[in-house]
């Protein structure tokens, strides 16, 4: 551990030790016997959901705008996959890069591998260093597995680390206690949609568990044309995954949760031309939690992710690539024979270990704190991506604290700070300051300021994507990381409003924001002494501001009717260093912004278990970063479902129609999303 980190960690550990010891409240100290209750025992908050700071906070107390997609919303929605849920979140761009790869990003630069968003499943990061992104098709979470999804809109680095640069998502899966018995869910649809999910919830000795197996497949987009050229979309995908979630509570204070999962995927990915990618993914996760009599909590999280990808590529000889035989006078390597320069398979691997110790404390009556230290080890390996046969690894440390001070009955102040240090770089701080002022118990305004840094991933800092003839001759350099790549920087300011009306059946959440991003990592074109005299250099090429506002509303007057709506406006003003040599070329980034986005989910539950829902999503025209121009469109999804209950077993039949209208383009103009019909049948037998 570096000298810079050590004092910070000592302070944090000291405060955790102090805070999580069996510190009793003033009331409890007065009474020595354990059989005496105080008002604290009656007035205690029942912690069920941890907010963006890992504390149990109401939305009126959080230092950021938060969207919660609960189980009722998920069930009411016309989502078929997890990624569809993010169409319900203001400011999010959700798209299919191809039939196998999904992407979602917040506000800016949604490219093929969107990477400024932390995504966690039960607190385990599923963001992979090898792609600097989340591969949604392999994480092994289905809609049936989810209890709720919490989306923090805005930087959350002080809680979730540097990758929560623009926003963070935490998917919380179903507890092994919430269900019992068997559940079988199957879906059949156009586009060769074949989904099945089998789950069993029960006990193994003292351990309660939920074990699930799932299979998902589709044939991707239809064949199409790109500027008159046919595109044979070989982008089908299939995924098989198995997950286990166990829970053991040896006593009232301690709980131990452990998870393991494995997933195998075959994906067709590409741009106009496609390759087959096989992805093997597995993880293990342990979360130990100890509750103190003071209400404080100590947590330890340990997890391990391992991903291995194998791309099947058409083997390529140099002569084929150049279109000339080695006997030609134009052969670029005189005296050297033709040879295979691109192998049939390309294998890459990514592995992560992460250990975090966290204390959730109440050091003072009006002061609550979450503080923790963590260490993470990332290892990647890939001949094609890094031009080396061995592994690359890095160890990073982080120490953080988030404080919530209830300054008065009306004012809540939040402060968060994270210190991060990678073994190969200087340490850096990210922080957040926020104040929530209660104009009225039902009307709260919030002002928040963020200063965040995002360090480059191993791919971003170490990429050397080269095609070699031999060790001395580089035939083609496609992407090389700049040796002096820096952290991305963000300053953001937001003013938010949260309001409730009609006995809290109607809520409004508004956010007015300015985000200033500098040193954003992109690619610049540059001259290079290879066959095409050209390379993409990964570097801090972009800077831009995003200004805008978002509105989110939720109306649930009774148990039958649900309405969720949102609108977002954002304006990107910035530029990218597109080419650095031979001549300088700066390009405008504003064209990549999504100016307007909106969505409306309406659902009504009739008698006899019949529910009808509609989801309308609007997106203005945009040009995807590393994608193409796409027109504005309105997509309408519909869902009808009916439930029958027979002897405590539930049978749910559903029909989902996604995009009940004309086809529209997803990410690239030749990815035409046509009307899709999906019939679902779910049987739950307790």
């Amino acid at each position: 551990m570096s000298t810079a980190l050590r004092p910070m960690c000592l302070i944090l550990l000291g405060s955790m030790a102090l805070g999580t010891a069996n510190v009793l409240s003033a009331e409890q100290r007065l009474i020595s016997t354990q059989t005496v209750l105080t008002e604290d025992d009656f007035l205690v908050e029942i912690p069920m959901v941890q907010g963006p700071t890992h504390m149990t906070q109401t939305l009126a107390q959080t230092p950021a705008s938060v969207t919660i997609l609960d189980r009722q919303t998920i069930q009411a929605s016309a989502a078929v996959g997890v990624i569809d849920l993010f169409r319900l979140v203001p400011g999010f761009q959700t798209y299919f890069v191809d039939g196998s790869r999904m992407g979602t990003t917040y506000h800016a630069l949604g490219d093929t591998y969107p990477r400024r968003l932390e995504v966690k499943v039960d607190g385990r990061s599923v963001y992979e260093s090898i792609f600097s992104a989340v591969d949604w098709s392999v994480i092994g979470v289905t809609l049936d597995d989810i209890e709720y999804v919490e989306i923090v809109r805005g930087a959350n680095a002080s809680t979730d680390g540097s990758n929560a640069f623009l926003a963070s998502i935490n998917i919380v899966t179903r507890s092994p206690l919430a269900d019992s018995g068997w559940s079988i869910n199957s879906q059949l649809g156009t586009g060769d949609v074949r989904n099945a999910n089998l789950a069993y919830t029960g006990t193994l000795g003292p351990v309660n568990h939920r074990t699930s197996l799932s299979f998902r497949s589709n044939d991707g987009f239809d064949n199409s044309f790109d500027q008159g050229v046919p595109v044979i979309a070989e982008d089908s995908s299939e995924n098989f995954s198995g997950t286990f979630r166990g829970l053991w509570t040896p006593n009232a204070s301690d709980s131990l949760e452990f998870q393991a999962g494995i997933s195998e995927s075959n994906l067709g990915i590409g741009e106009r031309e496609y390759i087959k990618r096989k992805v093997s993914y597995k993880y293990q996760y342990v979360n130990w939690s100890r509750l103190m009599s003071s209400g404080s909590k100590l947590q330890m999280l340990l997890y391990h992710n391992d991903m291995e990808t194998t791309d099947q590529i058409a083997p390529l000889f140099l002569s084929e690539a150049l279109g000339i035989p080695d006997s030609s006078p134009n052969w670029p390597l005189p005296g050297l024979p033709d040879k295979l320069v691109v192998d049939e398979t390309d294998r890459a691997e990514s592995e992560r270990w992460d250990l975090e110790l966290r204390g959730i404390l109440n050091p003072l009556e009006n002061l609550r704190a979450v503080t923790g230290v963590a260490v993470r080890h990332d290892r990647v390996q890939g001949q094609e991506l890094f031009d080396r046969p061995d592994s690359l690894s890095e160890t990073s440390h982080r120490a953080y604290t988030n404080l919530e001070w209830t300054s008065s009955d009306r004012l809540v102040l939040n402060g968060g700070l994270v210190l991060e240090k990678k073994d190969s770089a200087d340490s850096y701080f990210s922080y957040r300051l926020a104040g929530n002022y209660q104009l009225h118990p039902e009307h709260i305004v919030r002002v928040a300021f963020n200063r965040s840094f995002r360090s480059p991933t191993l791919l971003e800092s170490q990429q050397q994507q080269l095609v070699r003839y031999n060790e001395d001759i580089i035939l083609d350099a496609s992407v090389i990381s700049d040796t002096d790549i820096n952290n991305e920087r963000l300053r953001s300011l937001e003013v938010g409003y949260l309001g409730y009306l009609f006995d809290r059946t109607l809520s409004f959440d508004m956010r007015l924001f300015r985000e200033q991003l500098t040193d954003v990592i992109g690619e610049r074109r540059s001259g290079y002494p290879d066959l095409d005299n050209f390379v993409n250099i990964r570097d801090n090429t972009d800077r831009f501001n995003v200004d805008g506002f978002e509105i989110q509303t939720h109306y649930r007057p009774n148990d039958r009717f649900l309405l969720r709506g949102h609108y977002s406006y954002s304006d990107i003003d910035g530029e990218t260093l597109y080419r650095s040599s031979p001549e300088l070329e700066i390009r405008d980034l504003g064209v990549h912004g999504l100016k307007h986005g909106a969505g409306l989910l309406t659902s009504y539950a009739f008698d006899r278990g019949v529910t009808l829902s509609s989801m309308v999503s609007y997106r203005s025209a945009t040009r995807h970063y590393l994608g193409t121009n796409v027109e504005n469109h309105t997509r309408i999804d519909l869902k009808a479902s009916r439930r029958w209950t027979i002897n405590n077993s539930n049978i749910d039949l559903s029909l989902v129609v996604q995009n009940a209208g004309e086809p529209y383009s997803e990410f690239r103009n030749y990815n035409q999303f046509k009307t899709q019909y999906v019939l679902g049948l779910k049987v739950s037998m307790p």
Partner: protein
Amino acid sequence: MRSTLSQKKAYRGGRPQSGWSMRVLFVVAIMSGGVVAADPVEVFFLVSKPTTDYLEVLTTVQEELEEEFPDKYGYTIEFVSEQSAVESVASLPMATADVFVTIGTAAADRAYQYKLGVPIISVLITDSSFTALAIKHFGSVDRAFARQVSSICIDQPTSRSIRLAKLLLPRAKKAGVMLGPSSVERQEKLAESISAAGMAPEFVTVGAKDNPIAKIEPLMRNTDVFIPVPDSRLINIATAKWILQLSYRHKVPVIAFSRTYVKAGALAAIYSSPQNVALQAAEWIADTVMVTAKEGQAYPPKYYSMHFNYSVASSLDVAIENEQFYLERLQGGSK
């Protein structure tokens, strides 16, 4: 007073919700106005800490008194968290108080040290805390009463929850009750209440060293309604999450003891809200100034609040009437 009560959804147990006692007191106060108006009553509030629940009790007591008896009372407020070490009582402003109100256990503990010669009412305090403090400072509860020390405890009788459970779930035959180390001694009385409500009682006791899920799950599986009895904070927090998840699994409604419990997923709760506590305290203050040398008493909570989670009701297929419906029946049952 009545309209204020109604707006705050505070319900009164035991007697019809007429607000008659305050009105009678009001009339008495007017009739004897020549005496009391000339000599304003000094009410001294000692509050444990300036946080939401405590402040809500404090302000509501004042509002209620001002609404019924404008300018009759003078108020002095101090917070224990802002006091220095115990000083000589003679030098403190409380020395001239006519009535002393403590809000919270820490405030009661501090006030009892002063051995004041004026009526003291302790609110936002549990029955067991009051007993412990009375023994600590006065030797016994009776001696505390003799020193004009009274309390209004916040522990709602679990029998109310049991009756509500039966009203919400008339077909329930078995009621599961979770007790902890602090509440286990109440098992016998609770069994009687459950039987009186027409249900068979089933109990489980969860201690700090027990596996809570292993203890609660078998009971939850075999009961029609589940009632956790408030215990220490550790037991309350440690079991709530598992209780609510198991409740969802087995489709067994939970009748809890706090609003936050309902918010987290219980079907319903009966509890003492800060307004309930304040209202009873205001009535006590108004009553006390009419009587000289009144002996102390431990008052059970007269008012209560009810809260329902309609989403949970829907998912458990429980049809819930409006709150007034249950209020009338709960009051009727207590006559």
